[in-house]
């Protein structure tokens, strides 16, 4: 047994444990949203686009995970969160992005839309601030034109969510407030 090898194992275990904690957060949010009429729009799915490719080992781990919710009363609207663990040099620590998107073309929606809108290269966004953007004024902002009508976004540092009460107060309530 070597210290070097043990440290690699510890790092790996830590990351596994961290993902388990993210799953606990998601599960609690799923509960709160369901009781408000919002069910998962993506089943148990939390990420996409992982690499199994020998040439893309940095993507063997997810760079972000998401939960996306739908409500039959508001068929064109999705609410959701994305936890972004790493994104080049754009974030200094993992962030939790909340979003409400009103779609024009729901069939073109992607679970990554909240992520894409937050990390839009043309915009400098900061945490703890509400963003509201509507299609008529900012039509060119969107990756696919005419897909999205309105967007509301807000993001916080992931570790600022430190208890189930925080999930309720800082995430669930904020998601509900996004107009």
């Amino acid at each position, binding site marked *: 047994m070597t210290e070097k090898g043990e440290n690699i194992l*510890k790092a790996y275990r830590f990351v596994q444990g961290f993902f388990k904690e993210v799953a606990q957060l998601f599960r609690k949010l799923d509960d709160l949203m369901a009781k408000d009429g919002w069910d998962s729009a993506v089943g148990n799915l939390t990420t996409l686009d992982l690499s199994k490719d020998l040439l893309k080992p940095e993507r063997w781990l997810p760079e972000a995970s998401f939960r996306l919710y739908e409500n039959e009363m508001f068929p064109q609207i999705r609410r959701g969160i994305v936890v972004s663990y790493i994104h080049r040099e754009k974030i200094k*620590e993992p962030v939790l992005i909340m979003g409400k998107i009103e779609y024009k073309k729901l069939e073109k929606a992607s679970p990554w839309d909240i992520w894409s809108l937050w990390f839009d290269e043309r915009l400098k966004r900061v945490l703890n601030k509400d963003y509201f953007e509507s299609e008529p004024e900012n039509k060119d902002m969107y990756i696919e034109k005419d897909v999205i009508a309105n967007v509301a976004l807000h993001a916080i540092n992931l570790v600022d969510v430190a208890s*189930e009460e*925080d999930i309720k107060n800082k995430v669930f309530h904020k998601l509900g407030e996004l107009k």
Partner: protein
Amino acid sequence: MIQAELKGKLPEVENKEDVLTSNVFGMLKYLPPQKGIFKILEAMKDYSEKRSSFIENLKAQSIDLNDYDDVEYHFWEYSQEYGEPDIILIIKDSEGHRTDLMLCIEVKFQSGKSGTGEYDQLKLYTLALADREKRKTFRNTGISNFDGIFLGTIYLTHYTQFRSVLESLAQIQKSGASGFESKIYELRWNEVTKTLVQLKIESEYENRLVDDLVLLLKTKNLVDFEGFTDVSVNFQHQHLFHPPLKIEVSAKAIFNGFSELGIRSILKFDKYIFLRREM
């Protein structure tokens, strides 16, 4: 079985809900009900508009679980017409002064509800066990001859099944039955874990049993969210977190061994992990 699973000897069954059911309730069976299963039942809520607790519903029926001291566990008992609920509990007062009580438990781990529409399993089990004539379709005589009060069906799940249960209730209503909102109970695995952690048991041997159960449930991540673990606390090697600040950014062109975590080059994003601490 539980020891084999705790030691990782059974990877092929670690996500099987029947194994989880057997390990957890098979062990709970050996705890006095007042110390184990009754405490777990206290965490349940029904699906009425008021979301009443199990205890509130018992009180409304003038039932006090403190009057009961024995629980029979019936695992996977079969009815030709209505299927096979995971567990049926028959709660008794060993002195025979009180009316026997029955609860059905349907357990889920990583799967969702079986059956849709008229074949919805929650609907089938609940209606079968609530009706004396339908109970007779069960092979087990303890169930078929049961003459007490059916309290309802517990849906024990890992993830939220709110909508799924509302669909079951709609199916029950469609069949002409009513009032079942207060007979289907929501119970989550993380609540079971929390209850077991909080149990106050004096017997050393009973404590060992509970400790094993808690360990099993924690291993499966069936716990509440309590915040994120601090990476600097998680690692024993504190020197890892006081390294030189220079970040190695250049990707190695040739493999010459694995990077040393101690010099912070294993993770490209290490500077971000340590940022809060360094500040």
